[in-house]
Each structure stands twice: as C-alpha cells, then as structure tokens.
C-alpha cells in the first residue's frame, strides 16, 4: 500500500510557539485517516502547512511522490489537494452554484481573450462546469431549490455541505476536512458520516479528517493519528488509539488518566 501524503519532521513555529513539532505523518492512498488531538494541538496548523498557507519552518511534505514545500495554496490545489475550513469560509455574496464553480477554477481554461470573444470552447466549458456544479450540490445533499441562494443565506448544515461540494469541485485526490460536523446535530452528523464514506468509496478520494466527535472518528477511520501540543503522540488503528494511555492523558490531563482508562474500556470512547 502506498502513501499519498507523507510528512517527515514537519515543523511550524510561530515566534516561540511550536504549533507543529517534527511530525512524521502518512496517509495511505484510498484510506480514511483521522487527525485528532485536544484544542490547540496544532491540527489546523498542520492542514495549513500542508496546503501552502504557511511555509514549514522545517521538514518535508511529499504528495503523490512530489514535494509540496514552497508551493502556493493554488498550486497545492492544482496538485490535487482539496480542503474545507474549520470556521466556514464560503464566498458569502455568491450563490451556492457559483461557490462550487469557483472551486473548478484551476480545472478550467478560459482566458481573457476567449471570454471577450465568447468562443465556443469557453461557452462549452462554462455550461459543463455549471452542470457539474449542480451535480456536486446534489451529491452532497444540498436541496436543488437552494442552488441559486446566496451562500450566506443558507442554513448552517447546508453551508458545511456546500464547503465539501466546493472542495470536491477542485477535483482532488486527497480531501482535507477540518471538523466538518462541528455544530451539527446527531442526525446531520450521521448523514455527513455517510457522505464522507461515499466520497471515498464512489470517487476514490483519500480522506484526511480532523474531528472532535470520537464516535464518528472511531466508526469511520481506518487509521488515526493523535497530536498533542504540536507533537505526534500516537498513530494506529482505532482500537489501539482508544486504549492508548498517552492519548487519554493528553485529552484528560495526567492524574485523570488511570480513571479515564477504566472508563474508556467500558464506553469505548476516550472522552
């Protein structure tokens, strides 16, 4: 089995704070992998470093055999990594369809001249993109009658779905989801779990997921990596992570570890 993403000694410092601390991390091609850890552990910073929003202080990032260090965010997207944001970052004054079409930017070719003369190629590309955008909205379960609503007017759950549709529109090989179920009710969370599975199964897109909902993580992941204070403290199968003392300690603080340990055995969850 090959790894689609591999980091070696990846480090990101902000002044004196080491948000990501020499992390060796790999995501197996075709897997659903989760990245967990307490608040402030450096999960989002890890995503931002991989996607080119931050330049790593040191370390390497290899994606499908190619180094991503020094690439701009749009180049990382073109290379095949799509992402969503922890705090929804849709283009609020654009419609749902337009948001998705923006995601296709790097897969489209229209240039200024073609647009001005309205060439047959540009018209065809535009029509295809629009149709594909509607199909993607349908795939993530956004109601069809909402397609032309401004994204800022969509209900919260639909905004989360739209972010996923927009990320899928970049035609990624690897999809990074940063807490996609944050703020959702159990019913919506269950639907989203199905959606994530379907994306991997039907589109063969590898998924890397940051999530606080342990039930979801344990249920869906084939592999879990745990960060604490920037450093990787554990990686392995869900059943191993569940009973890992260091992980429990990280979540609940020392002292509480032994008690929680017993607890976790009973409930099957470290929190």
């Amino acid at each position, binding site marked *: 089995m090959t790894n689609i993403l591999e980091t070696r000694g990846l480090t990101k410092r902000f002044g004196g704070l080491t948000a990501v601390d020499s992390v060796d991390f790999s995501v197996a091609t075709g897997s659903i992998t989760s990245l967990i850890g307490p608040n402030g552990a450096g999960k989002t910073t890890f995503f931002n470093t991989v996607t080119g929003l931050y330049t790593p202080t040191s370390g390497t990032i290899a994606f499908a055999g190619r180094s991503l260090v020094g690439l701009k965010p749009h180049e990382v*997207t073109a290379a095949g990594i799509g992402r969503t944001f922890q705090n929804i*970052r849709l*283009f*609020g*004054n654009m419609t749902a369809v337009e948001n998705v079409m923006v995601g296709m930017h790097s897969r489209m070719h229209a240039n200024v001249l073609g647009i001005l003369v*309205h060439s047959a190629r540009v018209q065809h590309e*535009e029509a295809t993109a629009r149709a594909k955008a509607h199909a993607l909205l349908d795939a993530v379960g956004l109601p069809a009658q909402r397609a032309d609503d401004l994204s800022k007017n969509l209900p919260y759950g639909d905004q989360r779905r739209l972010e996923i549709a927009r990320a899928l529109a970049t035609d990624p090989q690897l999809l990074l989801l940063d807490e996609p179920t944050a703020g959702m009710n159990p019913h919506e969370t269950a639907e989203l779990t199905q959606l994530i599975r379907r994306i991997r199964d039907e589109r063969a897109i590898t998924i890397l997921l940051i999530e606080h909902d342990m039930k979801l993580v344990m249920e869906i992941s084939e592999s879990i990596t745990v960060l604490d204070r920037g450093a990787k403290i554990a990686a392995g199968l869900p059943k191993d992570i569940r009973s890992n003392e260091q992980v429990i300690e990280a979540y609940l603080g020392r002292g509480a570890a032994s008690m929680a340990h017993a607890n976790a055995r009973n409930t099957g969850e470290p929190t």
Partner: protein
Amino acid sequence: MQIRIRTSMIGAAFGFAIALISGGFAGIFAGLVAGLISGYVVPQAEPLTDKRRAVGQGMIAALVGSVMTILGIVLRNMGIDPIIGEPLNILAVGIAIIGATILCVLVCVVMCVVRTEPPARERIGMAIVVGIILVTYPWLDQFLNLRFMNEVIPVLVFLLMALGLNIVVGYAGLLDLGYAAFFAIGAYAAAMVSSPHFGLSLSFWLAIWVAAATAAIFGLILGSPTLPLRGDYLAIVTLGFGEIVPIAIKNLDKVSLSIWNYPLFVDVDLTGGTKGINPINRPWLPIIGEFSPSNPIPWYFLILGIMLISIFFISRLRNSRLGRAWTALREDELAAGAMGINTVNVKLLAFAIGATFSGLAGAFYGAYISAIFPESFRFDVSVMLLCMVILGGLGNMSGVILGGIIIQFADRLFLPQMSNVVQKLIVASGNESLRDINFASDFRLLLFGLTLVLMMVLRPQGLVPSNGAPRVLPVAAGEARHD
C-alpha cells in the same frame, strides 16, 4: 404601499429638481427623467410578475413622479421666474405640464410592464426603451432647448471610468484611490501619438488603442507593488500613485537620459509640462468628416458607442471564470487561494482591465477638448469616481450607471444652474453684500458631501442594491484568519 412611494420618490425628486432648476421646456425632460428612474427603481425594489399589477405599480410611481415634476414646473414659473424677471407664458407652462405628465406615465408604465417579461425578453425590452431615449436625446435636447449636450458628453466619459473602477473596487474588492491616474495616462498616451507634439499625428482610431494598451500596462506596473497589501494599506498606496502621476506628468517636460557619460537624449519635452499637449487630432469618419468642436452630436454617439461596447464586454467578463475569481477574491482572499485561484494573476488582471477603460476614456476626452493638461486628473476625480461607484450600489453595473448619472448631473448641471438661479434671486432682492458669492464653486463640495451623507443615511445599500454585492467598502476586510 409606503415603500413603493418612498422608492418612487427617488425619480420624483429628480423630476422636481430638474424642473425647478432649469425652466422652460426642460420641465418636459424632467418628467421623462422621473419616469425613467422610477420605472427602473420601482420593479427593482419589488419584483413584478403580473402585468396588471405592473401597470398599477407603474401608474402609482408615475403619479408621484409627475406630481412632483409639475410642482417643480409651477414653482419655477410662478415663484422664481417673476422674481428674476422672466416673463410668464401660461401656454408654455401648460405644454410643459402636459408633456411632462405624458412622458412620465408612458415611460414608467412601459418599463414596469417590460419587467414582467421572462429574462431574455425583459432585457431586449429594456434595451429598446433605453435605446430610444439615448438615440433621440440629442434632438430632444435641441427641440426642448435644454442645452445639456456639452455636459452630457463628459458625464458619459466619467461613467465609462466608473465602470472600469467598478471592476477593481466592486468586483475584485481592491480599494483604489488613485484610479484617475490611468485616465491621465490614457489621455497622454493618445495625445503623444496623435498630435503634432512628436510629429506622429496618428489617427484617433489608432491612438485610442495605444491609450488602452498603455493604461493596461501601467495598471500592471502600478498594481504589482500593491499585491501583498489589503484594505487600508492598499488604499494609501494607490492614493500615492494618484498623486504621483499628475506631478510626474507636469515635470516630464525636460527629460534627459544618459548611459555612463554618453547622453542618449537631452531636454526632451515628453508631456508639455504645465502647458499640456495641444492641439490633439480629432476623429475623422467618412460622411461625417472630422468631428467638429461646434457639433456635439457625433461626439455623443462616439462616447455612447464606446460605453455600450464596454458594458457588453464587462458583463461577459463578470459572468466568466475570471469574474467569479474576482468576486471570490473580494469575498475571501485566503479561501480563494485555497480553491485554486492564483490571486496574484487575478488581481493584476483586475488592475489592468480596469485601467483599460479609464485609458479609453482619457483618449476620447483628450480628442474631445483637443488639449490635455496635468491639472485635469487630480485626486478629486478619483474620489468623485469612487462616490459614483458606491452611490448606486457597489459591484452592480446598472447601479453604478445610475449613481454616476446622479452625481455627475448634480455636479455639472444641477449645482451650476441652481447657483445661477440663486444669483439672480439675490440680484433681484437687491442685497449687495451677497452679490459676490458664487454658489456653484463655493458650495459645490459642501452640497456634494451633504448629498452623499444623506444618501448613505437613507439608503446605505446604494440606489440599486444588487443581491450579491457587498454592502460596505472593502476597507475593513484587512484582518486575516487562517482556520
């Protein structure tokens, strides 16, 4: 109902003001303007689908519009004219009132009804109504003895620039306070190649392309250092460019260049310094011949044509991959990058394409007045343009046009005419101490500012709010989040 009347008041206020300020048959034109604006704004505020309801709505709006216009006509003819010593002609007043009412109702109702059509036919219908008015305007002007024509042409020049600025500020969200610089650059580029200044004397039809290309290149050059900047910082740097360009132009009249000690050229006069460049070639067309300064009609159709073509191409850009990238950039630059948009390229394209339209406007303007001076492109031009873009509704082309027309007419027609009337009233009242006040120049900026403040308080979303345009200037968008 209450909202409907308030919306109709925008058009009605225009009818009233025009009728009051310009006497005589201008009242008829006032009615037309009131009808046109109401017919546009009212269905915008409340979408119409049913024909009979549309007629009703149009009638109500037109009624408000004509009543206010008639009020203006009556006040002018019975209140002001007797004081300033113009003879009262009851027949003329009657004709003005009837003409104003008919035109107001006709235009307003037709426009409301057209709005109920499906989008494709609606667009054609609107184009026909507006087209008829635009094409017949020069003869209407003569027939009604309006004498607005010499002001209408610069208004259209400014509108063209406002549309270009709207690409930069409204679409891409880049607050540019020095946009008038590209107007100057376009005007000078055209003037240099199309005048005896360098002995080149190219035809206007070639010079205008030189101007567009030069402005675009300077858009790239001036845009590139601003790439990492956002919000307030961007505004300050562009403000600097807006100041530097006219000063540079003023001082480029003795340029020497030497490499090591070998002078390449000495004391070359690039721009004519404070004297400017004069004369500049005028356009020439078969049948019409050379456009003459005494006949504004060919100039009117030329700038109108340039504007319509620009609108056509700008809307194509707007509804394209590039237009979406601009909007995404404005909404959230970081997310735009993460969605695969090369933000550097897209920003530079906004600056370059925006500047192109200003360059075209500059080339036309230079040929029209046949001379060009560094003083024509000061900071207040940039501010004026920005106000035009904001007033009507940021990011929305028809809003920008309406806002632009309002500000330009207030500045070029309304205030001077009003000042004229007030002057005559003062003379008639015999108050010697007030005699030397020139309202147009002394109070111009005050009244201008006051209008803007009032607008922003009463209708902060702009006259024609578009769904999908930002409600605020992009200044506050400077903060960066990364999660």
